[in-house]
């Protein structure tokens, strides 16, 4: 229902054009929680901002379409986008804990979000806010409080409440649990799943933490240096990963369930995305790299009905 077609978003920098998102295609189905995983500078936040058209001035979508029920969001005017934002697609930004205005009561801030997109009476807004608080498991009696009176986990719930305030179809959550403690993180993840079940929201969950994905998501997209290197359902990605990066990533996370096996890591670092880039972005760190990988960019090949991988040699590689 939300389809990304060959999205390319580049940043203009003094050093050249930075290819933050460079040809990403995938589909989010209704009622799905899709995990978009990647490490720093892989482009996942840029992709999120491209979807709601809130990119910084230096960034520009160069190519591609984002189809919501068949309509291209990228070709809409600013006015049309205003009707889409929040009512159809909403976003919880990274660092959401600091996004609340410290001098306004929390209620006012949610009201602001609602009133900006719906013209309803103040009374109804208040009722809506109480409902929202209950939906995110917060005590509605606290809605007049100020942000500093809320803990980290509570603030994150407020941000979630804001994001679902106008009953959107898609919510994009950018690192919603990164700054939170383990127990609170778990509560937020459970909340997100419950909201999906109750409200039938589809979600893109952006994170660098694979265990969050394993806990919550139905599908996974692995991003690396602006490319979507692998995409598929949660079980295939975790049990039969095809792309060398995915395999290496899975081997590098410590697992409580296993006794200690040596963790591997990926030597090197993400390539500089301005100017010249090798054809396969993972070339410099891939244990299976061949000459072909430096010259020709691997195209996404289907490995199943709803999964694909972008690697020249995925068929030959062992999937563990």
């Amino acid at each position: 229902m939300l389809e990304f077609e060959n999205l390319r978003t580049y940043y203009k920098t003094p050093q050249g054009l930075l290819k933050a998102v460079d040809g990403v295609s995938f589909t989010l189905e209704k009622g799905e929680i899709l995990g978009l995983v990647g490490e720093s500078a892989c482009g996942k936040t840029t992709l999120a901002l491209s979807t709601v058209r809130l990119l910084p001035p230096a960034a520009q979508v160069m190519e591609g379409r984002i189809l919501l029920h068949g309509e291209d969001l990228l070709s809409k005017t600013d006015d049309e986008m205003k009707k889409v934002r929040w009512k159809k697609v909403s976003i919880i930004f990274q660092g959401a804990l600091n996004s609340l205005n410290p001098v306004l009561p929390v209620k006012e801030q949610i009201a602001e979000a609602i009133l900006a997109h719906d013209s309803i009476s103040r009374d109804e807004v208040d009722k809506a806010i109480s409902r929202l608080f209950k939906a995110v498991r917060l005590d509605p009696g606290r809605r007049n409080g100020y942000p500093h009176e809320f803990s980290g986990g509570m603030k994150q719930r407020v941000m979630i409440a804001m994001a679902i305030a106008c009953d959107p179809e898609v919510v994009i959550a950018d690192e919603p649990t990164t700054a939170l403690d383990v127990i609170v993180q778990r509560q937020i993840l459970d909340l997100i799943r419950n909201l999906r079940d109750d409200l039938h929201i589809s979600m893109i969950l952006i994170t660098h933490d694979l265990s969050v994905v394993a806990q919550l998501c139905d599908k996974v997209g692995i991003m690396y240096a602006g490319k979507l290197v692998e995409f598929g359902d949660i079980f295939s990605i975790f049990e039969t990963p095809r792309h060398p990066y995915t395999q290496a990533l899975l081997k590098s996370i410590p697992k409580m369930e296993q006794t200690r096996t040596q963790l591997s890591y990926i030597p090197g670092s993400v390539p500089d995305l301005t100017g010249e880039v090798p054809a396969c972005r993972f070339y410099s760190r891939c244990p299976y790299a061949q000459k072909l990988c430096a010259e020709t960019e691997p195209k996404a090949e289907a490995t199943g009905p709803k999964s694909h991988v972008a690697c020249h040699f995925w068929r030959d590689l062992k999937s563990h």
Partner: protein
Amino acid sequence: MPFLEGSQIPLIDSNSSDALVQIRNLKKWFPVRRSIFAKPDPNERFVHAVDGVSFDIRNEDAISIVGESGCGKTTLARLLLRLMDPTEGSILFESRNIFTTTKTEMHKLRAQIQAVFQDPYSSLDPKKTVLQIVSEPLEVNQITDSGKQTLERASSSLSAVGLHAPQRFLAKFPYELSGGQRQRVAIARAMIVNPRLIVADEPVSMLDASIRAEILNLMLNLRDRFNLTYVFITHDLAVARYVSNRMAVMYLGRIIEIGSAEDVCTSPIHPYTKALLSALPTTNPRNRHEGVELKGEVPSAVQIPTGCRFRPRCLYAFDRCNAEPELIRVGNDHYAACWLAQAA
């Protein structure tokens, strides 16, 4: 929940003098005072950051102190590094109290205990080159005599942390290095004075997942080669399990469970430990388990609950819990501070 056949054996055995570090009744309270000019208040309130911690760190241990934010683990680390003085209690390093050493002895002591911090970018002075950064402990403690000696020691320290061909790195600034390289430089800096103990405060939490193992493996490797002892401060239990052989769980300024990493993770006794472990997201999507419900939020460290400090949130609290439990033995080198672990 069944009562265990617990004994009354307390954690601290006064004959444990072979321990490298002995922490006894350590307390650090921060006054909640508005201004330095306000009158001292008899009913003054304190943030009880560390509120009575006692345990031993043995030679070549790799012990993790885990807990959520506000539990006091960071303050404990700062006290170990003598970056602040305690309100009460002592830390004995090789049987000498680090808080009462003389100035001259302090120099030697500092060289024995070094630190690695969380943010590899901000823990390196952006205006200094790698050489200057790595050799700073030598300079501060007036250890080397000549520039040549400094250079040699810096180079060998960099090689030891895996930055081979150190001459490539000596003249670089931190912004020219990757996150993993910066953290290696931070470790090289800690290693250059041949310490016995390294306190690592969240050493990998700001690094990408795929390079965390790089640093963790390096630290383990250094421990084997140089007979180091580690104290890891972390909130990430999976990392703690991977990298340490002992684990201590802190809650509101106290250690509520301590033991081998294996025991604490596979057979946790304290309800808080259990909650923490079950809250961890799984790494196996087929194994999605329910998290343990806890009541309420972490209370403020100013108003510590009376009795067992975990009581307000504990699902198993009973009448004995209005007295604060001490750490008692629940297994072979496994201790928990919970009345449920003691026979009635």
